[in-house]
């Protein structure tokens, strides 16, 4: 067994330090070490998107990132979306449009949606479908998800909402 490494990073706005082995993925570290089980494992090889997180604001599959790689970096998971103001507008939109059934892919899709809307406030349906192609959903058939992303974009366009969301 290799020796463990201390990793310090900013996760959902908080500075945290954790101890992990070099071969442990960021996904394992989030779920098993930090107890952030909102991020899901669906395939562990980058083909389902359930483990999507933001790494320095960039969408990545946390199963394809090593825990040790996030030293000094910032990570955002589904647990980091809601804040003192309550649910994030993207979360509100997904509930209102009923854009989920089993909900297992939902955390990854919410994070992927944030990554998209942070860069492109008003994406077309084609763009949304292309962007979310890496996030498999088996229940909904995607249509309500696309609708929810558009509705989230509209909410975020409201004055005040775009701030720090």
């Amino acid at each position, binding site marked *: 067994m290799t020796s463990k490494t201390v990793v310090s990073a900013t996760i959902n706005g908080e500075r945290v330090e954790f101890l992990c082995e*070099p071969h442990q993925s960021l996904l394992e570290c989030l779920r098993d070490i930090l107890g952030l089980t909102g991020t899901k494992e669906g395939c562990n090889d980058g083909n389902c998107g359930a483990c999507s997180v933001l790494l320095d604001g960039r969408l990545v599959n946390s199963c394809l*990132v*090593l825990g040790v790689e996030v030293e000094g970096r910032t990570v955002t998971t589904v647990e980091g979306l809601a804040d003192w103001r309550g649910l994030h507008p993207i979360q509100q939109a997904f509930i209102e449009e009923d854009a989920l059934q089993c909900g297992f892919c939902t955390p990854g899709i919410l994070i992927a949606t944030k990554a998209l809307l942070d860069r492109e406030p008003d994406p077309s349906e084609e763009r949304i479908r292309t962007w979310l192609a*890496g996030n498999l959903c088996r229940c909904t058939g995607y249509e309500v998800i696309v609708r929810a992303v558009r509705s989230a974009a509209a909410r975020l366009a409201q004055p005040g909402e775009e701030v720090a969301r």
Partner: protein
Amino acid sequence: MKPFEYQAPTSITEAIALLADKGKKARPLAGGTDLLVQLRHGLFAPDLLIDIKKISEFSRITFDPAAGLTVGAAVTCAQLCEHPDARRLYPGLIDAASIIGGSAIQGRATLGGNLCNAAPSADSVPAMIVLNATCAIAGPEGSRTVPADAFCTAPGKTVLGRDELLVSIHFPPPTPNSGACYRRFTPRLEMDIAVAGAGVWVALSDDYGITDARIALSAVAPTPLFVEPAGAVLIGQAPTEAAFAEAAELARQAASPIEDVRGTEAQRRHLVGVLVKRALRGAVSRAKGGESHD
């Protein structure tokens, strides 16, 4: 997966030294989108992973109208696809770089990794080949360059020595009236792996005759395949469907596809013809000043 150590050097010499340490089996880590999966499947069992992302030469994109575009081996597809000069002047490269995995993979996968993984189906390699890219390699005895079409030697094998690193990939500045395009076929529209792919670069005279052309293929040979004669036959011809068909036929003949779960031999050979023609149409329209990256 066998446990391993992790190092993130900040200089090339440091990285080479770690790589050269005969005591340890080491592998460089860039985006990790192929490597980590291969480690989990036990394809390799290194003692050490060398993260090259903290080395500046590996992580930057530079463009100079006179010198061209240099893409560090650890630059992600997302970074490259967002680079304004790359989008404007190298749309053929963006065609390929923008379809390597979905949006989350794009945030990690690198051009260098796509090249060093040396998969026959690597989308970006035919684009590099037709754009006359050269690969800058660093090793204990200093550095050397290798043309992209000579980099991959077999499935998963490259010209890199065990203590050498791919530092960056260089693309010459685009010449006037030239254009490139990459087209692939996948059963799904995204998140899929090429059944076959074709990269094309053409240069046109002022009266739109083809003065030069290069064609390369993916997923139809043990390595990404440069088909020199398919490009050569176009030189001096007008960019007509008849000329495209001639080039496509030569490309079909050059292909030596395998049959596997992703495609049949006949399907792949057939697709080579279809995709070369489609890529030619795209490249010619770009050479005529058509759209940059679609």
